[in-house]
């Protein structure tokens, strides 16, 4: 009974985390970059939104500005990687650390800024879960629609090819570095947008928000794609799958809390889930695959690359 009672909240929060996971999907799956900026940029989105709301900025405008702030963080990571030659994973960690200071600065040195749901016209709040599900659902639908349109433009296609095969992309005149910066900008913009929605939903922005967000994002991606790839492996179905993955993750999360697991251990649980998803393909290949019969045509029979992106 308690579980059913918690369900609407889990769905609402799951939608928001699913949106964040779409940002992670763009960097991790499309660009083939494990971008750790996310843990910082989701918090940046929350901080920007909370402070702007406090200053009387309308909620819709504050989430757009939060998107821009996150995009800027992504661009910084992208430039650290492409212009300064820092490995992408380190570039993300560096930006994440910078963002901790930036986020504190945004919050005016406080570790928490509350949002008053009565003083502000919020897009969504936990006091009204059906309304929150509707609002979050509409925003998610708009983001998916815009991404669908974008990734099938001339520019968008090259963003996909950049992650899929950078050699081919360069040979076809694609500026791979520019695309990586652009893609990381879009990815972190979406992550920050989710952070802004989360702040409104919870009614506060906390400097520690978003720690481990990348792991939750990856969990949502793995859960979602494990289903959606079986239905139809196309772009929109994948994105919807990722959203579904976020919701499933939060339903499980709430269920586990109700079972009595202390919230302190939930990050461990998230990490184990992701580790398992990452390990399974490797274990299958390494220990459970059938002996391969050498193909008579050698490399010519190449079935293309498997498992990648």
């Amino acid at each position, binding site marked *: 009974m308690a579980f059913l009672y918690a369900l609407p909240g889990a769905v609402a929060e799951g939608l928001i985390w699913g949106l964040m996971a779409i940002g992670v999907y763009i960097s991790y799956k499309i660009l083939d970059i494990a971008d750790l900026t996310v843990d910082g940029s989701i918090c940046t989105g929350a901080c920007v939104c909370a402070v702007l709301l406090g200053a009387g900025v309308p909620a819709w405008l504050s989430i757009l500005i939060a998107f821009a702030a996150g995009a800027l963080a992504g661009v910084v990571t992208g430039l650290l990687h492409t212009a300064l030659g820092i490995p992408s994973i380190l570039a993300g960690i560096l930006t994440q650390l910078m963002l901790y200071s930036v986020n504190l600065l945004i919050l005016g040195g406080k570790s928490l800024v509350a949002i008053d749901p009565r003083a502000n016209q919020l897009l969504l709040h936990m006091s009204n879960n059906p309304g929150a599900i509707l609002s979050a659902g509409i925003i998610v639908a708009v983001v998916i629609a815009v991404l669908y349109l*974008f990734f*099938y*433009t*001339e*520019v*968008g*296609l*090259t963003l*996909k*090819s950049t992650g*899929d*095969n950078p*050699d*081919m*992309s*360069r*040979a*076809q*005149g*694609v*500026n*791979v570095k520019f695309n990586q910066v652009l893609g990381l900008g879009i990815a972190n913009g979406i992550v920050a947008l989710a952070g802004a929605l989360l702040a409104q939903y919870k009614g506060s922005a906390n400097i520690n928000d978003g720690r481990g967000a990348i792991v939750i994002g990856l969990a949502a991606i793995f859960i979602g794609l494990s289903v959606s790839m079986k239905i139809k492996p196309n772009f929109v179905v994948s994105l919807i799958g990722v959203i579904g993955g976020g919701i499933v993750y939060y339903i499980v999360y709430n269920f586990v809390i109700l079972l009595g697991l202390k919230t302190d251990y939930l990050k461990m649980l998230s990490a184990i889930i992701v580790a398992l998803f990452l390990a399974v393909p490797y274990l299958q290949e390494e220990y459970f695959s059938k002996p391969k019969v050498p193909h*008579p*045509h*050698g*490399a*010519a*029979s*190449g*079935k*293309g*690359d*498997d498992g*990648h*992106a």
Partner: protein
Amino acid sequence: MLKITDLHKTFNPGTINEKTALDGLNLHLKDGDFVTVIGGNGAGKSTLQNAIAGVWKPDYGTIEIDGVDVTHMPEHQRAAFLGRVFQDPMKGTAPDMEIVENLAIAARRGKKRKLVWGVRKAEREEYKRLLETLDLGLENRLTTKVGLLSGGQRQALTLLMASMNKPKLLMLDEHTAALDPKTAAKVLEITDRIVTENKLTTLMITHNMKDAIAHGNRLIMMYDGHIVVDVEGEEKKKLTVEDLLNMFVQASGKEFASDRAILS
């Protein structure tokens, strides 16, 4: 069409792995030349192509394509002049994207890419016709992910992509080396047709001396970072594998050091 002057490139200078890959190379291709390039391992054949493509900058020397000095132009900008096919069939196409998407990306090589639909309806028909010319049945698989194709099919597709927009120079880097003999022959046949039909200036690296003799109007042999043999026209037509081996010995003072080249 292509003019390379005194090109030098040394990898890992000052270390025990120092390797002079290009040592004062000069090469001038006329419009419409189809040049085959042979040479042993480490002769600098692939280094030459990578230099032209702009994978890295040479230490010294200049590269001109169609009168434009591209020596310091970044790789993605230079691509406007070039069509490239790699030795590795996996390298020339995006596996997780559809055949038609790969072609659409190639069709916009050298053009400004905008926020407009990436594959237009009219293009699909055009690509279908292009794919029909390959005679591999790909015209009915426009939306198939390229990763599902065989190595030979991918190489043929890459060839088609490389020849789109009539590049100033088509570069083939041992593009049949990873294929079985039958597929290799088919891809070479497609190569000849595409080069002739589009009158493309072409640089084809090969390990196979017979192929080097049978294709193109001019043949160059590389050794130790420069060109040691350069024959064309009637003289090239009369060449035999034995001639080439003798020429190699004369130029280098050594036996030809690639078993693969002799056996194939």
